[in-house]
């Protein structure tokens, strides 16, 4: 039998375990086509909110040697673009997750209701954006708030729900809350609050002051997060954070992830990154004698 990179998320087969991370290019049909051309097994949209958002004024990103800090401010054209995005993905025959972000569980229900009209394959709940007041970690600060949002959405959802969390001291309880409400999958992790100050200008560089750190810097924190949640809850997990080589992706999978999202890596390594990683994973699997992703998931845990 030949090597296969297929993986299963929320019961659905993906041709490979790689997807883009939410917020990277997924807010216009042209961008969906661009993402599709890169070879991903699934596409995730930019987090969409009820109304369009302008986001912060540039500079919204600071590139660092080991990642980047962004404070885009959830700029997006609003949930209604979802129809076109799902349509573009369908046309390209690629599964799509619609990412939604609200300030309250009521907003999340409204968003999910609209999202379901567009019939995406999955809905990703952004419970973890760190730099946009009212949204993300602000809306989902406590285990109770997470439960409230996920249970509300799950109660009306007819398609699988992913809960995207970030690193926190209560990560395991947060993930448990989301799963207990019916989330099929935990997405780990979002960016971590961070700041860079220019010593001569003597102010923070980002217009918003602080932003979220992504890229290689957070990769070992993300691997830890995936490992812990898998160890404690045996959950279905999508790993995200600093994946830019096949080694990074395999680390996530051995730690317990069934799929891996790539954000910052697209910039640091270029648009060919998906093909390079797939090539690397295949040679690796050949070298160690593995036939499928499935047999690698979570095996770094002591048996």
């Amino acid at each position, binding site marked *: 039998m030949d090597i296969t990179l297929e993986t299963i998320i929320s019961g659905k087969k993906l041709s490979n375990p790689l997807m883009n991370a939410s917020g990277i290019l997924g807010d216009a049909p042209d961008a969906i086509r661009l993402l599709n051309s890169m070879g991903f097994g699934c596409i995730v949209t930019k987090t969409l909110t009820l109304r369009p958002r302008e986001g912060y004024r*540039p500079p919204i990103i600071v*590139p660092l040697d080991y990642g980047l800090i962004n404070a885009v401010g959830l700029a997006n054209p609003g949930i209604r673009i979802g129809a076109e995005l799902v349509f573009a993905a369908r046309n390209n025959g690629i599964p799509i997750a619609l990412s939604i972000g609200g300030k309250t569980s009521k907003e999340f229900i409204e968003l999910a209701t609209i999202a379901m009209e567009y019939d995406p394959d999955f809905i990703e709940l952004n419970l973890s954006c760190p730099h946009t007041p009212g949204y993300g970690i602000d809306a989902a600060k406590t285990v109770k708030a997470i439960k409230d949002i996920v249970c509300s959405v799950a109660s009306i959802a007819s398609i699988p729900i992913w809960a995207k969390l970030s690193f926190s001291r209560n990560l395991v309880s947060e993930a448990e809350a989301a799963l207990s409400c019916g989330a099929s999958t935990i997405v780990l992790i979002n960016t971590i609050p961070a700041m860079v100050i220019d010593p001569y200008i003597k102010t923070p*560089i980002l217009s918003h002051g602080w932003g979220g750190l992504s890229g290689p810097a957070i990769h070992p924190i993300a691997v830890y997060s995936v490992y812990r949640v898998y160890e404690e809850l045996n959950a279905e997990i999508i790993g995200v954070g600093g994946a830019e080589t096949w080694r990074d992706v395999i680390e996530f999978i051995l730690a317990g992830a069934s799929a891996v999202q790539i954000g910052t890596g697209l910039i640091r390594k270029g648009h060919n990154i998906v093909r390079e990683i797939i090539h690397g994973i295949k040679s690796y699997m050949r070298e160690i004698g593995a036939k499928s992703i499935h047999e690698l998931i979570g095996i770094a845990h002591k048996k």
Partner: protein
Amino acid sequence: MSIAYRYSKPSYFTGKIYNINRLSRTLYEIDINIIQDKLISLPPQFVLVCVPGYEAVPMSIAVQEENGGVIKLIVKPVGETTNKLVTLNNEYIGIIGPLGKPLLPSGDKILLLAGGSGVAPMLRFAQYYASLKKDITFVFGAWESDEIGDVPGIIRRYASEVITTCTNGCDIRGTVVDVLKYGYVREDEYDYVFVAGPEIMIRNIANYVKNQYKTIVIMERLVRCGLGLCGSCIISGTNKLLCYDGPGFVLSDIVEVLRQ
């Protein structure tokens, strides 16, 4: 070859402006020291200039000196941020770059066509090809002659032949396109033609030139992240991002967009 094909990866730099000079009614040259570092770029790469208290705006690197320790911008103030920028002599600014991809076909005879602030990226091409001892013709056009000002003086440092165009008082009366149209220079005598300026000028030239494979156009779009993440600069109708795939494009690749 005297210039190695090498550029920095995008980073944040602090710059200190040490000279601002009004070149014409509409254009300023701004010279910037990259503090304790080098920002090494190749044309037509650009930077995001972070003006403290204002926004970060995309600007072409017009000249690179001291191996990237010094850069020159040519700025046309149009709004809040660019108007502030041209007042910041002796001040610190933030610089994110280099952004975009180098696009450097090899040829012995190069024709550069610039309108308005499009002179900035064209100057950088001129500097690059001059360092390779290539033969450069530089056409610089504007509406009025007072928009031309002292710009040709800078261009002459790199280009063997400089032609200005405007409605009155320039080498040629007319537009940059007219220079081609009326045979002042002949496109087919050049290995490559580069074009930068207002989109309407680019469209006109796109409609006129014969060899779309040998024409490079520098585009502008709304740049927010500059790194290919936010999608703001996508060239609609294509799957190309200005800040990632551009800002220079071979005309044949985007001619459809320009014809829309």
